[in-house]
């Protein structure tokens, strides 16, 4: 037995030992991970919620008019990609333009927003929830949230598509405006919620809902959003799609008692 062989054997054992330990410890989880990811985004799922999204693509801009002028617009966006991109390395980059308009229809501000999203498979494998269409072939990559500030306040917003990576069919958006709660209204809005909803809203707070101060209730109450629908006629002026959100069965037990609210979307 040569010294070189002995040295190689030692290095081999040095490497194989932690690999075997890791394999024993994480093997089943990795198998589940890979099996789940291979099943794409529509596996054995439990529907957690549904929401309507509006497709921004080459068909032209889509306008959203607010119930009153707003200084902040929330956009939840995810790219819809062709099925063959389910495991695209590095994810995809997609973009959309936001024109904020005043009551006269004049552009106040213009923002070109580009976002990066992980591939559908990576999103599925790494998260507890994922999104899919029931009757459409497109897959949904990772979701993002964008807050757009407007000074002065905007009466409406116009969304249009920007050049995106190949295989990106469009950007699917939900647009929200803040509920117009002020002062006591915001506190009442919080108190009107059920105990479970209050606990959900106050989850980020160190103390339970019954220990919140009036100021904290006011802040939580004001941070409520409601969805805004587009102007025009569905099918002609915009494409509305129902997006499903699924949860992995193992997540159901702990989420069963959790209420949902618009602020958590």
């Amino acid at each position, binding site marked *: 037995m040569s010294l070189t062989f002995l040295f190689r054997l030692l290095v081999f054992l040095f490497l194989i030992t932690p690999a075997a330990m890791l394999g024993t410890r994480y093997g089943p989880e990795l198998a589940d991970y890979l099996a789940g990811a291979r099943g794409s985004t529509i596996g054995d799922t*439990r529907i957690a919620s*549904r929401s309507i999204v509006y497709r921004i693509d080459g068909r032209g801009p889509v306008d959203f008019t607010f119930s009153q002028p707003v200084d902040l617009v929330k956009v939840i966006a995810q790219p819809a990609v062709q099925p063959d991109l389910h495991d695209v390395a590095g994810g995809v980059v997609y973009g959309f333009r936001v024109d904020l308009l005043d009551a006269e229809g004049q552009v106040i501000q213009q923002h070109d927003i580009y976002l990066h999203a992980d591939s559908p498979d990576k999103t599925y494998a790494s998260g507890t929830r994922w999104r899919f269409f029931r009757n459409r072939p497109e897959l949904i990559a990772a979701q993002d949230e964008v807050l757009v500030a407007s000074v002065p306040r905007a009466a409406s917003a116009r969304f249009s598509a920007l050049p995106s990576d190949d295989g990106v069919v469009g950007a699917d958006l939900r647009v929200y405006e803040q509920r117009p709660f002020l002062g006591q209204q915001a506190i009442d809005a919080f108190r009107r919620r059920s105990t479970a909803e209050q606990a959900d809203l106050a989850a980020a707070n160190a103390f339970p809902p019954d220990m919140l101060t009036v100021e904290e209730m006011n802040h939580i109450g004001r941070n409520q959003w409601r969805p805004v629908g587009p102007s025009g006629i569905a099918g002609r002026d915009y494409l509305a799609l129902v997006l499903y959100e699924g949860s992995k069965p193992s997540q159901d037990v702990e989420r069963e008692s959790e209420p*949902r609210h618009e602020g958590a979307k």
Partner: protein
Amino acid sequence: MIGRKHAFVLVLLMALAAGLAALLLPPLRDAGKVVRHDANGMAAARALFDAALADPQSQDLGGLAAPAGFAALPQKDEWQGVLLQEPADICVGRGAYLLRAGDALMPLAITAPHRGADRHTGTLAAQFFLEGNVVAAGWNSAPRHDHDLCGNAIDLARQDQHPFTGFALSFAARYPAGRVVQLHGFDGGSRAHVVAGDAAAIISNGTNDPSEAVLDLADCLTTLFAPRPALLYPYETQELGGTQNAQGRAMRAAGFAGFVHIELAADIRARLVQDAELRARFGQCLAGGLQ
């Protein structure tokens, strides 16, 4: 664009529909003593509905209607078929049923077990029947709750042995691939969770396992009422799923999977009654997937 002529015809049709609905829906204060039905009454009702669904213009319906406590009133003008209701001035809560004759009918029954208490639901059922080509419609003829004008009350959605349940079972037997829709109304302000209180509608098939057809219907109504949510029971709300609904349970026990329970918010009901176009789109959602 709708031309002047089309607009006139549309208004005329709406007026006709409203008038017919008023004729078909007598005031609940006219309701008399409620009769609790038994198996014999149920069998008589089933025999009547089976025959009426097979041939709504049959001359034999009069003979079958009397033992079941109904009068069969042939309809030949605005729609062809038969109206089964209790004889005049003998309203005892058996309900009222419309069955249409003709070809290429939509295998759909629109029902409203709580008209009066769930405001506009009876009117909506009548409008959907009159404006669409659906097979049947039905609703309560006595109020759900006691009140000063009428001391008799019955909750049809909880009656296992009742003509309303017999009607649903006969429809299910005649149209096994059809759909029985129950329209209900809810008060958003009294819901336990805000998410349900803010909803335009809550859709269910009366079970904790919604079928693909119910998912399709929920998606259609979600698009229709956007941005107000149309919630799917039990995934998006755990309220108002109609899991104890007597007709739903009876039809499921008979192997029928086409029961749909729809709760509508008050403002949505009012809009549907007033807006013919919205109503037409709602009707398209209800009929989606039916042959």
